């Protein structure tokens, strides 16, 4: 019956998300501007290269990857760090700690509403447009199913990392710097801004033993690489699952330790 509590929270967060229409439309607009910028940036990169493909990816591959990465970023970025920091600084967190719920899943589900909405208003349209514009460069089949599973795992890993970073606010008393650092590290090491194929060999080796690449690189790889076999899918999902469990454990442990030493501000 525990799960029912969080379903109610999710329901509330979807309704709340839907009530902010203007904000949703602004996000779509912001996303468009970003897409235009990366289009011209990468066009310049490919134009200045003698070959059609750079690091095994042609212009279309790169664009598909980056456009979808941007769309994913839009619905995966749930401002969790910001919310934890805000709850901490304003003392609002007391209200959650005096409820028979756990803060970690509560926050996840109260932010997940936005994920669900953004998935339908930004990711889906972007995906459909990309699919038709590139005239079938994306092959649809079993990969779609694995992609959905992979995205769910990616949301989990991303959330645990965010939650861990958010908890650091308990020690730094401020969110901003911590959040900026996290955004930079995650967007670079996850392959959200530059495809991992463009990384130097040694650097990529390092990235592949870190958890971040399971957030953007893996789901997108599953979606766009038609050469993948069942065993490849399973390996990817396995690595994601592994990191999900590890990050979940670490973030929960860190949270429990931090809450014990908590001194709530204000009052």
């Amino acid at each position, binding site marked *: 019956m525990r799960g029912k509590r969080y379903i*109610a929270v999710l329901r509330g967060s979807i309704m709340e998300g839907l009530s902010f229409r203007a904000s949703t439309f602004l996000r779509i607009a912001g996303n468009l501007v970003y897409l235009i910028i990366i289009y011209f940036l990468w066009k310049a990169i490919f134009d200045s290269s003698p070959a059609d493909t750079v690091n095994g990816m042609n212009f279309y591959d790169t664009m598909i990857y980056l456009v979808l990465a941007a769309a994913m970023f839009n619905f995966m970025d749930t401002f969790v760090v910001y919310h934890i920091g805000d709850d901490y600084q304003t003392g609002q967190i007391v209200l959650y700690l005096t409820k028979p719920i756990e803060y970690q899943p509560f926050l996840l589900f109260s932010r997940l509403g936005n994920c669900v909405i953004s998935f339908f208003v930004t990711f889906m349209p972007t995906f459909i447009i990309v699919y038709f514009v590139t005239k079938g460069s994306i092959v649809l089949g079993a990969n779609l199913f694995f992609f959905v599973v992979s995205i769910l795992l990616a949301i989990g890993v991303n959330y645990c990392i965010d939650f861990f970073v958010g908890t650091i606010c308990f020690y730094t008393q401020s969110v901003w710097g911590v959040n900026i650092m996290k955004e930079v590290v995650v967007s670079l090491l996850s392959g959200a801004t530059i495809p991992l194929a463009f990384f130097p060999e040694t650097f990529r080796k390092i990235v592949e033993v870190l958890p971040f690449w399971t957030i953007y690189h893996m789901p997108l790889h599953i979606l766009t690489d038609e050469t993948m076999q069942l065993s490849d899918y399973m390996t990817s999902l396995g690595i994601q699952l592994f990191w999900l469990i590890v990050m979940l454990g670490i973030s929960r442990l860190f949270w429990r330790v931090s809450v014990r030493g908590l001194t709530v501000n204000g009052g």
Partner: protein
Amino acid sequence: MEQMIKMTDINKEFKILNRHEGIKGSIQDLFSRDYQILKAVDGVTMDIMPGEMVGYLGPNGAGKSTTIKMMTGVLEPTSGEIFVNGRVPYENRTRNAQDIGVVFGQRSQLWWALPVIESFRILKEIYQISDRDFKENLEYYDALVGASELYHKPVRQMSLGQRTLCDILAAFLHNPGIVFMDEPTIGLDVSMKSKIRELVGTLNKEKGTTIILTTHDMGDVDALCKRIVIIDKGRMIYDNDIEHLRSFFGAYRTIRIQFDRHAQALDGEVLKQQAMEAEEWLRLKFPNAKSLAVSMEDNWIQILINEDEVHMMNVVNCIQEKRQIADMNLQEISTESVIRKIYEGGIV
């Protein structure tokens, strides 16, 4: 009857970094291990019975919030024993949370963008409230304050008063044994304040809920609480009936005097002169009356006395000998002025 809250010799200490001045100091602070121990709560012992309504008072920074946080299980005491409903709150935070409700006047637990009823439904799931209890409570609230008019209004469109009202209702929704209220009437207008007080009083009586009320508004205390607990600098300095408070801290009274029938017409300077004269006579005659104080308000000369030190009639006689008193009245000291005295360190 079993105590609702039992606290025995509770202490809470915080470690605070000693900060240095200037940019150089700030950089030093980044690596400093120079901590100072702050005793936020110092040896507090109290028992609260089921159904009691206790006013928990103290100046800003006295340790009230810290105590409340320990009762709700958010903070763990440094030492001492605490039981809420027979449980140690910080060890069973989630279980304890099921039996308590919390209202913070300056914060809201309602979902800002949603109609109140949706927040209530989420709370229903969170606290696992049965359909029957939920329905009964909604009907009860409607009968009590006509709450159904508000159910479908988004919280962000509510006035502060309406929001506070709904926050209080939300805290009682799962029929908790005990509700903590932190300044529930803060920032409200006079009529809303009295409405909130009436609601809280009724909920306490009809549901038998224990309520711990933290406030700076003595109107709340006078209207609601039989018993008050005062804490200052982490120490408990008073725990008794509110009636008892006034006599406990001395028999304070205010005598108000006018020397002229037409005091209204007098200008401030003359009145001030008269007040100073009166103070001089009294100080001369009663050198031991330390709490004696003379002030002015609306053309009245006010004399605050402690009847343990000097009897009221003696003061009046002393003045009467020197100058004819035209008009006079006597005021019992209000809870507010006693509390103010305590906070300012005048008594104790």
